[in-house]
Protein backbone atom coordinates (compact mmCIF):
# COMPACT_ATOMS: atom_id res chain seq x y z
CA UNK A 1 0.00 0.00 0.00
CA UNK A 2 1.35 3.43 -0.88
CA UNK A 3 1.66 6.45 1.32
CA UNK A 4 -1.27 7.61 3.39
CA UNK A 5 -1.31 11.22 2.27
CA UNK A 6 -4.87 11.82 3.32
CA UNK A 7 -5.73 13.49 6.55
CA UNK A 8 -2.19 13.89 7.77
CA UNK A 9 -1.71 16.83 5.43
CA UNK A 10 1.63 18.56 5.16
CA UNK A 11 1.97 21.70 7.23
CA UNK A 12 1.97 24.12 4.27
CA UNK A 13 -0.81 26.57 3.59
CA UNK A 14 -3.89 25.02 2.01
CA UNK A 15 -3.74 26.04 -1.67
CA UNK A 16 -7.48 25.50 -2.00
CA UNK A 17 -8.29 28.24 0.45
CA UNK A 18 -9.61 31.52 -0.93
CA UNK A 19 -6.60 33.56 -2.05
CA UNK A 20 -8.15 37.02 -1.93
CA UNK A 21 -11.36 38.02 -0.23
CA UNK A 22 -14.19 38.63 -2.69
CA UNK A 23 -16.08 41.51 -1.14
CA UNK A 24 -17.54 42.38 -4.54
CA UNK A 25 -19.46 39.12 -4.69
CA UNK A 26 -21.00 39.73 -1.28
CA UNK A 27 -21.94 43.30 -2.16
CA UNK A 28 -23.55 42.15 -5.40
CA UNK A 29 -25.55 39.48 -3.62
CA UNK A 30 -26.76 42.17 -1.22
CA UNK A 31 -27.82 44.40 -4.09
CA UNK A 32 -29.68 41.54 -5.75
CA UNK A 33 -31.56 40.68 -2.57
CA UNK A 34 -32.44 44.33 -2.18
CA UNK A 35 -33.76 44.50 -5.74
CA UNK A 36 -35.86 41.41 -5.13
CA UNK A 37 -37.15 43.01 -1.96
CA UNK A 38 -38.51 46.01 -3.91
CA UNK A 39 -41.52 43.91 -4.87
CA UNK A 40 -42.11 43.16 -1.19
CA UNK A 41 -41.85 46.88 -0.41
CA UNK A 42 -44.40 47.50 -3.16
CA UNK A 43 -46.93 45.19 -1.55
CA UNK A 44 -46.14 46.70 1.81
CA UNK A 45 -46.54 50.19 0.33
CA UNK A 46 -49.91 49.28 -1.15
CA UNK A 47 -51.15 47.88 2.14
CA UNK A 48 -49.93 50.88 4.11
CA UNK A 49 -51.31 53.42 1.66
CA UNK A 50 -54.80 51.91 1.58
CA UNK A 51 -54.91 50.90 5.22
CA UNK A 52 -53.99 54.06 7.09
CA UNK A 53 -56.50 56.45 5.46
CA UNK A 54 -59.07 53.65 5.59
CA UNK A 55 -58.64 53.36 9.35
CA UNK A 56 -59.22 57.10 9.62
CA UNK A 57 -62.25 56.71 7.39
CA UNK A 58 -63.71 54.00 9.59
CA UNK A 59 -63.12 56.14 12.63
CA UNK A 60 -65.81 58.43 11.22
CA UNK A 61 -68.00 56.04 9.26
CA UNK A 62 -68.99 52.74 10.84
CA UNK A 63 -68.27 49.41 9.18
CA UNK A 64 -71.95 48.60 9.15
CA UNK A 65 -72.88 51.80 7.36
CA UNK A 66 -70.11 51.22 4.82
CA UNK A 67 -70.86 47.58 4.09
CA UNK A 68 -74.60 47.30 4.57
CA UNK A 69 -76.33 50.52 3.50
CA UNK A 70 -77.39 51.27 -0.01
CA UNK A 71 -76.73 54.95 -0.63
CA UNK A 72 -73.39 56.25 -1.87
CA UNK A 73 -73.49 60.05 -2.02
CA UNK A 74 -70.11 61.38 -0.92
CA UNK A 75 -70.59 64.69 -2.73
CA UNK A 76 -73.91 65.62 -1.14
CA UNK A 77 -74.18 68.15 1.61
CA UNK A 78 -75.19 65.30 3.85
CA UNK A 79 -72.93 62.55 2.47
CA UNK A 80 -73.73 58.88 2.88
CA UNK A 81 -71.21 56.09 2.52
CA UNK A 82 -73.00 52.82 1.81
CA UNK A 83 -70.73 50.96 -0.59
CA UNK A 84 -73.33 48.46 -1.80
CA UNK A 85 -74.25 50.37 -4.98
CA UNK A 86 -70.60 50.34 -6.03
CA UNK A 87 -70.35 46.63 -5.26
CA UNK A 88 -73.55 46.10 -7.23
CA UNK A 89 -72.15 47.95 -10.24
CA UNK A 90 -68.94 45.95 -10.06
CA UNK A 91 -70.95 42.76 -9.70
CA UNK A 92 -73.29 43.36 -12.65
CA UNK A 93 -70.52 44.37 -15.03
CA UNK A 94 -68.25 41.53 -13.93
CA UNK A 95 -71.03 38.98 -14.41
CA UNK A 96 -71.67 40.23 -17.95
CA UNK A 97 -67.95 40.13 -18.71
CA UNK A 98 -67.59 36.64 -17.31
CA UNK A 99 -70.60 35.36 -19.26
CA UNK A 100 -68.85 36.54 -22.42
CA UNK A 101 -65.29 35.61 -21.57
CA UNK A 102 -65.58 32.17 -20.01
CA UNK A 103 -67.30 30.36 -22.88
CA UNK A 104 -65.39 32.23 -25.58
CA UNK A 105 -62.05 31.98 -23.76
CA UNK A 106 -62.44 28.31 -22.97
CA UNK A 107 -63.70 27.52 -26.47
CA UNK A 108 -60.73 29.34 -27.97
CA UNK A 109 -58.36 27.46 -25.67
CA UNK A 110 -59.80 24.05 -26.57
CA UNK A 111 -59.65 24.90 -30.25
CA UNK A 112 -56.05 26.11 -30.03
CA UNK A 113 -54.89 23.24 -27.85
CA UNK A 114 -56.75 20.28 -29.37
CA UNK A 115 -57.86 21.18 -32.90
CA UNK A 116 -55.75 23.87 -34.55
CA UNK A 117 -52.82 22.68 -36.67
CA UNK A 118 -49.46 23.91 -35.40
CA UNK A 119 -49.35 26.27 -38.36
CA UNK A 120 -52.79 27.76 -37.69
CA UNK A 121 -51.96 28.01 -34.02
CA UNK A 122 -48.86 30.04 -34.80
CA UNK A 123 -51.04 32.69 -36.46
CA UNK A 124 -54.22 32.54 -34.38
CA UNK A 125 -52.68 32.64 -30.94
CA UNK A 126 -50.62 35.83 -31.35
CA UNK A 127 -53.56 37.47 -33.11
CA UNK A 128 -55.80 36.73 -30.15
CA UNK A 129 -53.12 38.03 -27.83
CA UNK A 130 -53.08 41.37 -29.62
CA UNK A 131 -56.40 41.91 -27.84
CA UNK A 132 -54.57 41.79 -24.53
CA UNK A 133 -52.21 44.51 -25.72
CA UNK A 134 -54.93 47.04 -26.64
CA UNK A 135 -54.99 49.82 -24.03
CA UNK A 136 -58.15 49.73 -21.94
CA UNK A 137 -58.90 53.36 -22.71
CA UNK A 138 -59.33 52.26 -26.33
CA UNK A 139 -61.80 49.56 -25.31
CA UNK A 140 -63.69 52.14 -23.28
CA UNK A 141 -63.93 54.48 -26.25
CA UNK A 142 -65.09 51.61 -28.47
CA UNK A 143 -67.73 50.52 -25.95
CA UNK A 144 -69.15 54.02 -25.64
CA UNK A 145 -68.93 55.13 -29.27
CA UNK A 146 -69.52 51.91 -31.18
CA UNK A 147 -71.03 49.09 -29.13
CA UNK A 148 -73.63 51.24 -27.38
CA UNK A 149 -74.54 53.30 -30.43
CA UNK A 150 -74.40 50.80 -33.28
CA UNK A 151 -74.96 47.43 -31.61
CA UNK A 152 -77.03 47.88 -28.45
CA UNK A 153 -79.17 50.89 -29.28
CA UNK A 154 -80.88 49.15 -32.24
CA UNK A 155 -81.69 46.16 -30.01
CA UNK A 156 -82.60 48.03 -26.82
CA UNK A 157 -83.96 51.43 -27.91
CA UNK A 158 -84.31 52.70 -24.34
CA UNK A 159 -80.72 51.90 -23.34
CA UNK A 160 -78.91 54.76 -21.60
CA UNK A 161 -75.85 56.40 -23.19
CA UNK A 162 -73.77 55.16 -20.27
CA UNK A 163 -74.72 51.58 -19.46
CA UNK A 164 -73.35 48.47 -17.79
CA UNK A 165 -74.03 46.21 -20.74
CA UNK A 166 -71.62 47.71 -23.26
CA UNK A 167 -68.89 48.01 -20.62
CA UNK A 168 -69.41 44.40 -19.56
CA UNK A 169 -69.47 43.03 -23.09
CA UNK A 170 -66.27 44.80 -24.11
CA UNK A 171 -64.58 43.87 -20.85
CA UNK A 172 -65.51 40.27 -21.53
CA UNK A 173 -63.78 40.40 -24.90
CA UNK A 174 -60.80 42.04 -23.25
CA UNK A 175 -60.26 39.16 -20.81
CA UNK A 176 -60.66 36.40 -23.42
CA UNK A 177 -56.87 36.23 -24.00
CA UNK A 178 -56.22 35.94 -20.25
CA UNK A 179 -58.58 33.01 -19.91
CA UNK A 180 -57.66 31.38 -23.23
CA UNK A 181 -53.92 31.61 -22.70
CA UNK A 182 -53.90 30.25 -19.12
CA UNK A 183 -56.42 27.51 -19.92
CA UNK A 184 -54.39 26.46 -22.92
CA UNK A 185 -51.24 26.27 -20.79
CA UNK A 186 -53.09 23.99 -18.41
CA UNK A 187 -54.35 21.78 -21.25
CA UNK A 188 -50.90 21.64 -22.83
CA UNK A 189 -49.59 20.35 -19.49
CA UNK A 190 -51.94 17.36 -19.63
CA UNK A 191 -49.72 14.40 -20.51
CA UNK A 192 -50.32 13.18 -24.06
CA UNK A 193 -50.56 9.65 -22.67
CA UNK A 194 -54.00 10.52 -21.29
CA UNK A 195 -55.19 11.63 -24.72
CA UNK A 196 -53.68 8.56 -26.39
CA UNK A 197 -55.44 6.39 -23.85
CA UNK A 198 -58.78 7.93 -24.75
CA UNK A 199 -58.17 7.62 -28.47
CA UNK A 200 -57.12 4.02 -27.99
CA UNK A 201 -60.53 3.37 -26.47
CA UNK A 202 -62.17 4.70 -29.60
CA UNK A 203 -63.12 8.14 -28.26
CA UNK A 204 -63.62 10.95 -30.76
CA UNK A 205 -61.71 14.19 -30.57
CA UNK A 206 -64.67 15.94 -28.95
CA UNK A 207 -65.09 13.22 -26.33
CA UNK A 208 -61.38 13.29 -25.60
CA UNK A 209 -61.33 17.08 -25.26
CA UNK A 210 -64.41 17.32 -23.07
CA UNK A 211 -64.13 14.17 -20.97
CA UNK A 212 -60.38 13.76 -20.62
CA UNK A 213 -58.40 16.94 -21.34
CA UNK A 214 -60.70 19.53 -19.76
CA UNK A 215 -61.27 17.56 -16.53
CA UNK A 216 -57.55 16.82 -16.27
CA UNK A 217 -56.72 20.50 -16.70
CA UNK A 218 -59.58 21.66 -14.51
CA UNK A 219 -57.61 23.30 -11.72
CA UNK A 220 -55.64 25.32 -14.27
CA UNK A 221 -58.81 26.30 -16.10
CA UNK A 222 -60.50 27.38 -12.88
CA UNK A 223 -57.37 29.38 -12.05
CA UNK A 224 -57.75 31.11 -15.41
CA UNK A 225 -61.41 31.90 -14.65
CA UNK A 226 -60.58 33.29 -11.24
CA UNK A 227 -57.80 35.46 -12.65
CA UNK A 228 -60.14 36.66 -15.40
CA UNK A 229 -62.77 37.62 -12.83
CA UNK A 230 -60.13 39.40 -10.78
CA UNK A 231 -59.11 41.40 -13.84
CA UNK A 232 -62.73 42.29 -14.57
CA UNK A 233 -63.27 43.52 -11.03
CA UNK A 234 -60.14 45.65 -11.14
CA UNK A 235 -60.61 47.09 -14.63
CA UNK A 236 -61.05 50.85 -14.51
CA UNK A 237 -61.00 52.68 -17.81
CA UNK A 238 -63.74 50.78 -19.64
CA UNK A 239 -66.25 51.30 -16.86
CA UNK A 240 -65.20 54.89 -16.22
CA UNK A 241 -65.75 55.79 -19.86
CA UNK A 242 -68.69 53.59 -20.85
CA UNK A 243 -70.72 52.78 -17.72
CA UNK A 244 -71.14 56.26 -16.33
CA UNK A 245 -70.35 57.63 -12.92
CA UNK A 246 -73.73 57.36 -11.22
CA UNK A 247 -73.94 54.97 -8.25
CA UNK A 248 -76.97 52.86 -9.02
CA UNK A 249 -78.38 50.07 -6.88
CA UNK A 250 -79.87 48.08 -9.75
CA UNK A 251 -79.50 44.87 -11.67
CA UNK A 252 -80.65 46.43 -14.94
CA UNK A 253 -77.66 46.35 -17.29
CA UNK A 254 -79.22 48.90 -19.62
CA UNK A 255 -78.67 51.61 -17.03
CA UNK A 256 -75.49 53.40 -16.11
CA UNK A 257 -73.74 52.43 -12.88
CA UNK A 258 -70.60 53.15 -10.94
CA UNK A 259 -68.12 50.51 -9.84
CA UNK A 260 -65.53 50.53 -7.09
CA UNK A 261 -62.79 51.30 -9.60
CA UNK A 262 -64.63 54.05 -11.41
CA UNK A 263 -65.45 55.71 -8.11
CA UNK A 264 -61.77 55.72 -7.17
CA UNK A 265 -60.86 57.09 -10.59
CA UNK A 266 -63.51 59.79 -10.55
CA UNK A 267 -62.97 60.92 -6.97
CA UNK A 268 -59.19 60.62 -7.20
CA UNK A 269 -58.86 62.63 -10.39
CA UNK A 270 -60.73 65.57 -8.94
CA UNK A 271 -58.90 67.94 -6.66
CA UNK A 272 -59.86 66.34 -3.38
CA UNK A 273 -58.36 68.01 -0.31
CA UNK A 274 -56.08 65.65 1.63
CA UNK A 275 -57.58 64.61 4.92
CA UNK A 276 -61.20 65.21 3.97
CA UNK A 277 -63.58 62.34 4.48
CA UNK A 278 -64.12 62.18 0.73
CA UNK A 279 -60.36 61.75 0.19
CA UNK A 280 -60.31 58.93 2.74
CA UNK A 281 -63.28 57.25 1.10
CA UNK A 282 -61.11 56.67 -1.99
CA UNK A 283 -58.82 54.54 0.15
CA UNK A 284 -61.63 52.71 1.91
CA UNK A 285 -63.03 51.62 -1.43
CA UNK A 286 -59.46 50.87 -2.55
CA UNK A 287 -58.97 48.65 0.50
CA UNK A 288 -62.12 46.71 -0.31
CA UNK A 289 -61.03 46.32 -3.94
CA UNK A 290 -57.55 45.20 -2.92
CA UNK A 291 -58.87 42.61 -0.48
CA UNK A 292 -61.31 41.14 -3.02
CA UNK A 293 -58.74 40.88 -5.81
CA UNK A 294 -56.02 39.68 -3.43
CA UNK A 295 -58.17 36.75 -2.29
CA UNK A 296 -58.98 35.83 -5.89
CA UNK A 297 -55.34 36.08 -6.98
CA UNK A 298 -54.25 33.81 -4.16
CA UNK A 299 -56.90 31.23 -5.08
CA UNK A 300 -55.71 31.37 -8.67
CA UNK A 301 -52.01 31.04 -7.72
CA UNK A 302 -52.82 28.04 -5.54
CA UNK A 303 -54.77 26.33 -8.30
CA UNK A 304 -51.99 26.86 -10.83
CA UNK A 305 -49.51 25.32 -8.40
CA UNK A 306 -51.78 22.36 -7.99
CA UNK A 307 -51.84 21.44 -11.65
CA UNK A 308 -48.13 22.14 -12.08
CA UNK A 309 -47.39 19.76 -9.24
CA UNK A 310 -49.74 17.17 -10.66
CA UNK A 311 -48.03 17.02 -14.05
CA UNK A 312 -44.40 17.79 -13.39
Amino acid at each position, binding site marked *: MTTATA*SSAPGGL*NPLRQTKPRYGEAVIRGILVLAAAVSLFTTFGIVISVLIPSLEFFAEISFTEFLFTTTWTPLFANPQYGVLPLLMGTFVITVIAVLVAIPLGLGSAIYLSEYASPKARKVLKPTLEVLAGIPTVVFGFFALEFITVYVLKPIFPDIQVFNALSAGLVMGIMIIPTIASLSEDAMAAVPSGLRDGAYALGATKRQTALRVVVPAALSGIVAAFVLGVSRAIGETMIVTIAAGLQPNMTLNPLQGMQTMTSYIAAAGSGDVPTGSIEYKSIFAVGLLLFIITFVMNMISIRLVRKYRQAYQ
Partner: protein
Amino acid sequence: MMSGTMSEIHDPNAPQSTSDLANTGRMDVSAVLDEGRGVVVPESVGEVVFNLDDVHVFYGDFEAVRDVTMQIGRNEITAFIGPSGCGKSTLLRSFNRMNDLIPGARVEGLLAYHGFDIYAPDVDPIEVRRRIGMVFQKPNVFPKSIYENVAYGPKVNGMKVNMDDLVEECLTRAALWDEVKDDLKKSAYALSGGQQQRLVIARCIAVKPEVILMDEPCASLDPIATAKIEDLMKELAADYTIVIVTHNMQQAARVSDRTAFFTADVDAQGVRHGRLVEYGPTRSIFTAPNDPRTEDYISGRFG
Protein backbone atom coordinates in the same frame (compact mmCIF):
# COMPACT_ATOMS: atom_id res chain seq x y z
CA MET B 1 -10.62 1.68 5.65
CA MET B 2 -9.84 -0.51 2.65
CA SER B 3 -12.75 -2.04 0.87
CA GLY B 4 -12.65 -5.67 -0.06
CA THR B 5 -12.39 -5.03 -3.74
CA MET B 6 -9.45 -2.73 -3.25
CA SER B 7 -7.38 -5.30 -1.43
CA GLU B 8 -8.05 -7.73 -4.24
CA ILE B 9 -6.49 -5.37 -6.71
CA HIS B 10 -3.34 -5.08 -4.72
CA ASP B 11 -3.24 -8.72 -3.91
CA PRO B 12 0.18 -9.83 -5.19
CA ASN B 13 -1.21 -13.31 -5.74
CA ALA B 14 -3.93 -12.13 -8.06
CA PRO B 15 -3.82 -13.93 -11.40
CA GLN B 16 -1.93 -11.93 -13.97
CA SER B 17 -1.88 -14.42 -16.78
CA THR B 18 -3.68 -13.73 -20.03
CA SER B 19 -3.34 -17.24 -21.34
CA ASP B 20 -7.02 -18.10 -21.07
CA LEU B 21 -8.05 -15.03 -23.06
CA ALA B 22 -9.08 -16.96 -26.10
CA ASN B 23 -11.37 -19.27 -24.16
CA THR B 24 -13.42 -16.65 -22.38
CA GLY B 25 -14.88 -15.07 -25.48
CA ARG B 26 -13.75 -11.76 -24.10
CA MET B 27 -13.52 -8.75 -26.40
CA ASP B 28 -10.07 -8.74 -27.91
CA VAL B 29 -8.51 -5.58 -26.62
CA SER B 30 -4.91 -6.66 -26.77
CA ALA B 31 -4.37 -4.92 -30.10
CA VAL B 32 -6.02 -1.81 -28.75
CA LEU B 33 -3.93 -1.97 -25.61
CA ASP B 34 -0.80 -2.20 -27.69
CA GLU B 35 -1.58 0.96 -29.59
CA GLY B 36 -2.37 2.64 -26.28
CA ARG B 37 -0.13 4.72 -24.10
CA GLY B 38 2.38 1.95 -23.98
CA VAL B 39 3.64 2.83 -20.57
CA VAL B 40 3.30 -0.06 -18.27
CA VAL B 41 2.25 1.56 -15.03
CA PRO B 42 3.27 0.01 -11.75
CA GLU B 43 0.63 -1.88 -9.81
CA SER B 44 0.18 0.89 -7.28
CA VAL B 45 -0.09 4.64 -7.83
CA GLY B 46 3.13 6.61 -7.48
CA GLU B 47 2.66 10.31 -6.76
CA VAL B 48 -0.92 10.69 -5.56
CA VAL B 49 -3.04 13.61 -6.79
CA PHE B 50 -6.43 12.50 -5.53
CA ASN B 51 -6.89 10.32 -2.52
CA LEU B 52 -10.40 9.00 -1.99
CA ASP B 53 -11.18 7.24 1.21
CA ASP B 54 -14.68 5.86 1.73
CA VAL B 55 -16.31 8.53 -0.44
CA HIS B 56 -20.10 8.67 -0.63
CA VAL B 57 -22.04 11.12 -2.81
CA PHE B 58 -25.64 11.97 -1.96
CA TYR B 59 -28.40 13.86 -3.70
CA GLY B 60 -30.62 14.68 -0.75
CA ASP B 61 -31.40 11.28 0.78
CA PHE B 62 -30.40 9.37 -2.33
CA GLU B 63 -26.95 7.85 -2.12
CA ALA B 64 -25.71 8.00 -5.73
CA VAL B 65 -22.22 6.71 -5.04
CA ARG B 66 -21.18 4.68 -2.04
CA ASP B 67 -17.94 3.73 -0.46
CA VAL B 68 -15.29 4.56 -3.04
CA THR B 69 -11.67 4.24 -1.99
CA MET B 70 -8.99 4.83 -4.59
CA GLN B 71 -5.96 6.93 -5.49
CA ILE B 72 -5.35 8.78 -8.71
CA GLY B 73 -1.80 9.28 -9.88
CA ARG B 74 -0.08 12.29 -11.27
CA ASN B 75 0.37 12.62 -15.05
CA GLU B 76 -1.63 9.49 -15.56
CA ILE B 77 -4.82 9.03 -17.52
CA THR B 78 -7.39 7.35 -15.36
CA ALA B 79 -10.56 6.05 -16.98
CA PHE B 80 -13.88 5.53 -15.18
CA ILE B 81 -15.97 2.94 -16.95
CA GLY B 82 -19.21 1.18 -16.14
CA PRO B 83 -22.88 0.99 -17.14
CA SER B 84 -25.18 4.03 -17.11
CA GLY B 85 -26.31 5.11 -13.68
CA CYS B 86 -23.28 3.66 -11.92
CA GLY B 87 -22.33 7.07 -10.55
CA LYS B 88 -19.06 7.55 -12.44
CA SER B 89 -20.00 11.03 -13.73
CA THR B 90 -21.35 11.96 -10.34
CA LEU B 91 -18.08 10.97 -8.74
CA LEU B 92 -16.08 12.87 -11.36
CA ARG B 93 -18.12 16.01 -10.75
CA SER B 94 -17.35 15.89 -7.07
CA PHE B 95 -13.61 16.17 -7.84
CA ASN B 96 -13.96 19.87 -8.73
CA ARG B 97 -17.08 20.56 -6.69
CA MET B 98 -19.34 20.94 -9.70
CA ASN B 99 -21.81 18.89 -7.70
CA ASP B 100 -22.19 21.92 -5.43
CA LEU B 101 -24.37 23.39 -8.18
CA ILE B 102 -26.97 20.66 -7.73
CA PRO B 103 -29.23 21.47 -4.79
CA GLY B 104 -28.99 18.87 -2.08
CA ALA B 105 -25.79 17.27 -3.36
CA ARG B 106 -23.22 16.44 -0.69
CA VAL B 107 -20.09 14.37 -0.29
CA GLU B 108 -19.11 12.27 2.72
CA GLY B 109 -15.78 10.66 3.38
CA LEU B 110 -12.39 12.01 2.42
CA LEU B 111 -11.74 13.38 -1.06
CA ALA B 112 -8.27 14.91 -0.86
CA TYR B 113 -6.27 16.80 -3.46
CA HIS B 114 -2.56 16.61 -2.67
CA GLY B 115 -3.56 15.79 0.86
CA PHE B 116 -6.00 18.68 1.26
CA ASP B 117 -9.63 17.79 1.79
CA ILE B 118 -11.56 19.34 -1.11
CA TYR B 119 -14.67 19.51 1.06
CA ALA B 120 -13.08 21.12 4.11
CA PRO B 121 -15.12 24.11 5.27
CA ASP B 122 -12.39 26.67 4.50
CA VAL B 123 -11.93 25.46 0.93
CA ASP B 124 -13.10 27.77 -1.81
CA PRO B 125 -14.75 25.89 -4.70
CA ILE B 126 -13.52 28.56 -7.10
CA GLU B 127 -9.88 27.82 -6.17
CA VAL B 128 -10.59 24.13 -6.59
CA ARG B 129 -12.04 24.61 -10.08
CA ARG B 130 -9.15 26.81 -11.11
CA ARG B 131 -6.74 23.94 -10.44
CA ILE B 132 -9.00 21.15 -11.59
CA GLY B 133 -10.45 21.89 -15.01
CA MET B 134 -13.34 20.14 -16.68
CA VAL B 135 -14.40 19.16 -20.20
CA PHE B 136 -18.05 18.28 -20.63
CA GLN B 137 -19.98 15.73 -22.61
CA LYS B 138 -21.44 18.25 -25.03
CA PRO B 139 -18.90 20.81 -26.23
CA ASN B 140 -20.15 23.83 -24.31
CA VAL B 141 -18.36 26.66 -26.06
CA PHE B 142 -19.48 30.15 -25.08
CA PRO B 143 -21.53 32.14 -27.59
CA LYS B 144 -18.50 34.34 -28.26
CA SER B 145 -15.52 34.41 -30.57
CA ILE B 146 -12.89 31.67 -30.58
CA TYR B 147 -10.38 34.08 -29.09
CA GLU B 148 -12.71 35.17 -26.31
CA ASN B 149 -13.51 31.58 -25.44
CA VAL B 150 -9.86 30.89 -24.67
CA ALA B 151 -9.20 34.27 -23.05
CA TYR B 152 -12.23 34.04 -20.76
CA GLY B 153 -10.71 31.86 -18.03
CA PRO B 154 -7.48 33.86 -17.65
CA LYS B 155 -9.53 37.08 -17.62
CA VAL B 156 -11.92 36.06 -14.87
CA ASN B 157 -9.03 34.68 -12.86
CA GLY B 158 -7.12 37.94 -13.17
CA MET B 159 -4.08 36.25 -14.72
CA LYS B 160 -1.55 38.81 -15.90
CA VAL B 161 -0.28 37.35 -19.16
CA ASN B 162 0.18 38.31 -22.78
CA MET B 163 -3.24 37.19 -23.91
CA ASP B 164 -2.44 36.82 -27.60
CA ASP B 165 0.50 34.55 -26.81
CA LEU B 166 -1.51 32.53 -24.33
CA VAL B 167 -4.38 32.04 -26.79
CA GLU B 168 -1.97 30.85 -29.45
CA GLU B 169 -0.16 28.57 -27.03
CA CYS B 170 -3.35 26.96 -25.77
CA LEU B 171 -4.89 26.53 -29.21
CA THR B 172 -1.62 24.98 -30.38
CA ARG B 173 -1.58 22.58 -27.45
CA ALA B 174 -5.15 21.65 -28.23
CA ALA B 175 -4.15 20.93 -31.85
CA LEU B 176 -6.56 23.55 -33.10
CA TRP B 177 -4.33 26.52 -33.94
CA ASP B 178 -3.65 25.65 -37.57
CA GLU B 179 -7.35 25.24 -38.25
CA VAL B 180 -8.53 28.48 -36.67
CA LYS B 181 -5.61 30.92 -36.63
CA ASP B 182 -7.18 33.09 -39.34
CA ASP B 183 -10.67 32.98 -37.79
CA LEU B 184 -10.00 33.91 -34.18
CA LYS B 185 -12.70 36.58 -34.25
CA LYS B 186 -15.30 34.20 -35.63
CA SER B 187 -18.03 32.79 -33.44
CA ALA B 188 -17.09 29.53 -31.79
CA TYR B 189 -20.46 28.21 -32.94
CA ALA B 190 -19.12 28.16 -36.49
CA LEU B 191 -16.75 25.31 -35.56
CA SER B 192 -17.53 21.63 -35.98
CA GLY B 193 -18.35 19.51 -32.93
CA GLY B 194 -14.86 18.06 -32.75
CA GLN B 195 -13.26 21.48 -33.13
CA GLN B 196 -15.56 22.86 -30.45
CA GLN B 197 -14.48 20.13 -28.07
CA ARG B 198 -10.80 20.90 -28.74
CA LEU B 199 -11.61 24.58 -28.17
CA VAL B 200 -13.10 23.63 -24.82
CA ILE B 201 -9.88 21.80 -24.00
CA ALA B 202 -7.83 24.86 -25.04
CA ARG B 203 -10.09 27.04 -22.90
CA CYS B 204 -9.58 24.66 -20.00
CA ILE B 205 -5.76 24.59 -20.16
CA ALA B 206 -5.63 28.39 -20.50
CA VAL B 207 -6.14 28.74 -16.75
CA LYS B 208 -3.15 26.41 -16.19
CA PRO B 209 -4.85 23.67 -14.22
CA GLU B 210 -3.04 20.62 -12.94
CA VAL B 211 -5.90 18.23 -13.54
CA ILE B 212 -8.36 17.92 -16.43
CA LEU B 213 -11.59 16.05 -15.76
CA MET B 214 -13.32 14.80 -18.88
CA ASP B 215 -16.94 13.71 -18.70
CA GLU B 216 -17.52 11.54 -21.77
CA PRO B 217 -15.74 14.08 -23.97
CA CYS B 218 -16.30 12.13 -27.19
CA ALA B 219 -19.89 11.04 -26.62
CA SER B 220 -21.25 13.48 -29.21
CA LEU B 221 -18.40 13.21 -31.72
CA ASP B 222 -17.79 11.11 -34.82
CA PRO B 223 -14.93 8.56 -34.92
CA ILE B 224 -12.45 10.87 -36.65
CA ALA B 225 -13.01 13.71 -34.20
CA THR B 226 -12.84 11.16 -31.39
CA ALA B 227 -9.46 9.93 -32.59
CA LYS B 228 -8.14 13.49 -32.59
CA ILE B 229 -9.29 14.07 -29.03
CA GLU B 230 -7.77 10.78 -27.93
CA ASP B 231 -4.40 11.67 -29.49
CA LEU B 232 -4.63 15.02 -27.78
CA MET B 233 -5.30 13.42 -24.40
CA LYS B 234 -2.23 11.22 -24.73
CA GLU B 235 -0.08 14.27 -25.50
CA LEU B 236 -1.56 16.29 -22.67
CA ALA B 237 -0.84 13.53 -20.17
CA ALA B 238 2.80 14.64 -20.16
CA ASP B 239 1.78 17.83 -18.35
CA TYR B 240 -1.61 17.13 -16.86
CA THR B 241 -3.34 14.57 -14.76
CA ILE B 242 -6.40 13.41 -16.66
CA VAL B 243 -9.48 11.63 -15.39
CA ILE B 244 -11.94 10.56 -18.05
CA VAL B 245 -15.41 9.08 -17.80
CA THR B 246 -16.29 7.00 -20.82
CA HIS B 247 -18.92 4.56 -22.01
CA ASN B 248 -16.56 3.34 -24.66
CA MET B 249 -14.39 0.49 -23.37
CA GLN B 250 -12.17 0.60 -26.44
CA GLN B 251 -11.50 4.22 -25.66
CA ALA B 252 -10.58 3.39 -22.09
CA ALA B 253 -8.27 0.67 -23.36
CA ARG B 254 -6.70 2.96 -25.94
CA VAL B 255 -5.95 5.99 -23.83
CA SER B 256 -5.87 5.19 -20.16
CA ASP B 257 -3.13 4.04 -17.83
CA ARG B 258 -5.50 2.95 -15.14
CA THR B 259 -9.12 1.95 -15.26
CA ALA B 260 -11.74 1.97 -12.56
CA PHE B 261 -14.84 -0.14 -13.15
CA PHE B 262 -18.03 0.98 -11.47
CA THR B 263 -21.39 -0.70 -11.31
CA ALA B 264 -24.74 -0.07 -9.72
CA ASP B 265 -25.99 -2.12 -6.80
CA VAL B 266 -29.73 -2.32 -6.46
CA ASP B 267 -30.78 -2.30 -2.83
CA ALA B 268 -33.87 -3.82 -1.21
CA GLN B 269 -35.98 -0.76 -2.11
CA GLY B 270 -34.94 -1.00 -5.77
CA VAL B 271 -32.72 2.09 -5.52
CA ARG B 272 -29.47 2.07 -7.51
CA HIS B 273 -26.20 2.96 -5.79
CA GLY B 274 -22.98 3.38 -7.70
CA ARG B 275 -20.04 1.37 -6.40
CA LEU B 276 -16.41 0.87 -7.38
CA VAL B 277 -15.87 -2.76 -8.30
CA GLU B 278 -12.31 -2.91 -9.43
CA TYR B 279 -9.45 -0.51 -10.04
CA GLY B 280 -6.02 -1.15 -11.44
CA PRO B 281 -3.69 -0.76 -14.40
CA THR B 282 -5.73 -0.77 -17.58
CA ARG B 283 -3.92 -3.77 -18.98
CA SER B 284 -4.74 -5.92 -15.98
CA ILE B 285 -8.37 -4.78 -15.84
CA PHE B 286 -8.92 -5.67 -19.46
CA THR B 287 -6.89 -8.84 -19.63
CA ALA B 288 -7.18 -10.34 -16.17
CA PRO B 289 -10.03 -8.82 -14.17
CA ASN B 290 -10.43 -10.14 -10.66
CA ASP B 291 -14.12 -9.60 -10.31
CA PRO B 292 -16.64 -11.57 -12.40
CA ARG B 293 -18.74 -8.42 -12.83
CA THR B 294 -15.83 -6.65 -14.51
CA GLU B 295 -15.29 -9.63 -16.69
CA ASP B 296 -18.97 -9.72 -17.69
CA TYR B 297 -18.97 -6.03 -18.54
CA ILE B 298 -15.77 -6.15 -20.55
CA SER B 299 -16.83 -9.20 -22.48
CA GLY B 300 -20.05 -7.38 -23.34
CA ARG B 301 -22.31 -9.77 -21.43
CA PHE B 302 -24.00 -6.91 -19.62
CA GLY B 303 -24.17 -3.13 -19.53
